[in-house]
């Protein structure tokens, strides 16, 4: 029933992986003609960049191996009316645990924050949060570097 998972693996790839993915997505954005023309409002551009940042982070960090990245990619694909193809290496059954098993630790706010957090058990939620925090901080560093590099010109 309970599995002995002594090593909790929350490894995150190096910064350059994140950088690469983000730059690729940015370059894709630039190739869109609607993006570069001045009639595109700043808000839209911001939203697109933000979404590109998240998607690239999800792809760089775990791809489809992590629950939160999977949920993020699915959400993004739904917005673009695309379909995400997941390669399932092992059969994955996600139970929606609405039972009373969450009594001691109520992490509802965390669930709302984390993409795809609604369907996870609490221990899994914690693990995903740790990985998510690491990836977010890495993405922030990459974006900070980019902004500094661009604005210092």
């Amino acid at each position: 029933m309970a599995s002995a998972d002594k090593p909790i693996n929350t490894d995150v790839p190096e910064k350059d992986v994140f950088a690469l993915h983000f730059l690729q997505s940015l370059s894709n954005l630039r190739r869109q003609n609607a993006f570069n023309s001045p009639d595109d409002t700043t808000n839209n551009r911001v939203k697109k960049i933000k979404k590109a940042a998240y998607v690239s982070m999800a792809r760089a960090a775990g791809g489809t191996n992590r629950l939160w990245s999977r949920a993020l990619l699915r959400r993004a694909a739904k917005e673009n009316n695309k379909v995400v193809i997941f390669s399932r290496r092992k059969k994955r059954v996600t139970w929606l645990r609405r039972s009373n098993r969450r009594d001691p630790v109520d992490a509802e706010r965390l669930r709302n924050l984390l993409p795809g957090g609604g369907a996870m058990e609490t221990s899994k939620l914690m693990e995903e949060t740790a990985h998510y925090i690491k990836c977010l901080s890495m993405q922030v560093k990459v974006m900070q570097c980019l902004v500094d590099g661009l604005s210092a010109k």
Partner: protein
Amino acid sequence: MDLTGGFGARYDGGQEATGLESLHLGDELRQLPPDGFTALLELPPTQALKLLHFTDSPSSSPQAAPIAPPSFASNLALMERPARFSTEHQQNGTNLSGETTTSSSVKTEPAETNSSSQAVNNRSGKRKDSDNKPKSSTKKKNKSSEEKEKLPYVHVRARRGQATDSHSLAERARREKINARMKLLQELVPGCDKVCLSDTKIQGTALVLDEIINHVQSLQRQVEMLSMRLASVNPRIDFNLDTILASENGSLMDGSFNCTAMQVSWPHQVIETEQPYHQHRQLQQPQQWPFDVLNQRAWGREEDQDHGNDHNSLMVGSANLHPNQVKMEL
């Protein structure tokens, strides 16, 4: 006296003390006039004294072992039966060894814990091992950790004063899991240790959760802020991507960051323009690239449109260099 001798013979060497005492008492008793009645009473008093010694000694000395064997043997037999059943269930020899060690340690414990642990062991269908121990010794913990490593199932040891039914055990295992992850998160979030430093290492879960949530929210806000800045910066540079990358290269190379391993590979990269795309591929870590083919075409297209051959090589070199730069600096 013969009986005392007989009694003495039944014990280990440690029993000689009581044997001598009994002999001493027997001597004392022999000093009494051997009346008919007292002659009859001689033996019973010595036996009674023996029995008194018996009842005294088990609490103090290891001479209780000889007395214990009859009852202990039955207990051991009872213990081994569920052990055998559980091994049938689990098909694992380590479990039996665990059981036998626990049974051997149970030797000096009262019988009630034996029966209760038996009852729990009989419930091994839940695949959890639990023993009531009067005290948790490090040897036991090592054994349980060994079992945890070997078997795919978690072996939970119930501590003193805790319930041993399967539900609470599962709950406890789950809670321990959650606590372990909470600790991990605590180390990850900066400033979480200072939330309540005085109390314990693991602070109240609500406070830690709040801290974690705050951190995640701040990170998300940072991403949004940076994306806004990027969006405002981007339209000012309406060159194509290559010049942007070149400018980034220049600014990044200016040493706004500490690059200890800064190789001067500019000329090196510029020279190698024969197979730029292969270079590009080799520099990066092997990952699935959805944009890979698109990018190559894009780069080629943009270069052909805007720049000549020299610029072409430069730009390609810069494009190749950029991820390398990033790798070094970040």
